[in-house]
């Protein structure tokens, strides 16, 4: 990676859940790890999230979801991203997502799913690893 480059992450909350403590904890941890975190607030539609990710040219889209609507919202997001040629963005999901749903989500383009037990350190480590190896592949 070039020295001036920073990992840019959009932390977004799709769906109708009404608190964003988890998303903010993630946002703060990523900032403290030296990343630039764009946060868009609560109750975002898939269109809003994808449009923000596009304009902000993020490397990573981190989706936090509690409402149980992940099986419709997450594929809607990755679908829009594919339409707009954004398949190179690393899409991660966290929150309350049952294990049995994960294979299906991965098929839709979610790179990985992080359950409530994941520490923020693990997440930071994961993102760095992915983005850095991608940068190497481009060289």
């Amino acid at each position, binding site marked *: 990676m*070039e020295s*001036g*480059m*920073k990992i840019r992450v959009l932390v977004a909350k799709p769906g109708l859940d009404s608190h964003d403590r988890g998303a903010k904890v993630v*946002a*703060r941890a*990523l*900032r*403290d*790890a*030296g*990343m*630039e*975190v*764009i*946060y*868009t*607030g609560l109750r*975002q*539609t898939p*269109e*809003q999230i994808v*449009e*923000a990710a*596009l*304009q*902000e*040219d993020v490397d990573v889209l981190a989706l936090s979801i509690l409402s149980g609507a992940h099986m419709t919202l997450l594929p809607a997001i990755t679908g829009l991203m594919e339409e*707009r*040629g*954004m398949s190179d963005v690393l899409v991660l999901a966290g929150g309350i997502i049952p294990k049995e749903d994960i294979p299906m989500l991965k098929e839709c383009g979610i790179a990985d799913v992080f359950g409530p037990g994941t520490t923020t350190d693990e997440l930071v480590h994961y993102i760095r690893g992915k983005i850095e190896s991608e940068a190497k592949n481009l060289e």
Partner: protein
Amino acid sequence: MTHAEKLIRNMLKGDKRATARLLSIVENGLPQAQEAISLLYPHTGNAHIVGITGPSGVGKSTLVEKLVGEIRKKDQTVGIVAVDPTSPFSGGAFLGDRIRMQSLSTDQGVFIRSMASRGNPGGVARATKDAVKILDAAGMDFVIVETVGAGQSEVEVMRIAEVVVVILAPGLGDEIQALKAGQMEIGDIFVVNKSDIESADRVVVDLKSTLAMKTTKDGWRPEVVKTIATTGAGVDELMEKILEHKEYVESTGSEKTRRRRVQNEIESILREKAAEHVMRLLEETIQFNEIVEAVGALKKDPYTAVDELLLNVTAKPKKEGEA
């Protein structure tokens, strides 16, 4: 066709992804940045550039959302560059201005980009100016730059704006004092936001008395507007003042103002490039290391050392006939 050429061609066709990529190139100061700017520069000059600055939390982003609403009513397009500080400890940043601009997020006539200051005042000013050029070339009728007023680098960023709106709100203690050095001087329009809070009127009075005798470089008398960004009250008046100011500048010699802005930009790029150029020349010389050692050993003071180094660099390419 180079990468930058391709991106610019797509941007001019309305491809927002290309615009976003170009913004990343200048933000990261990548090698293609200069090529990109030089290719798109002929397409700039259309947008009206509005700077919005003021202390943290006064309601800048909320106001921007409402102001953009006014602009969109006239069916004009808007680019927004929202600059937030980088954490000096981690080098990361939390960019939260979009939280207050949700109603704009899927409007196809609006493009929002969040930028971190990345700890280098000259760097953020440079990147912001280039970002504004990109959004201008992308065809935006207005480009709004939001920065939190925290110091010299914001003043530098605001130099690119054709009109500077300084925002205050009651509840900051001494509101006028909260404006850092320079901000009072750069404002063309002053907004007292959160005027639903009682003490707002006192801020208006203080502000008006501070501004009483002031005129800007263009001879414009700064205006004071009261707003409630959360409801949108007063935002139509703010829009009117912005347009009035634009007319004023255009009728009283915008060429001069434009010239001043261009000269300022050339000077700042020159300063940056000259410094880089000299450093590169010097780092290759043995003399540089010798002088560093001499200063370290207290045999020379750093000012004399720099004079000697500069003399050496500037005297180097001797033309014929010169001594």
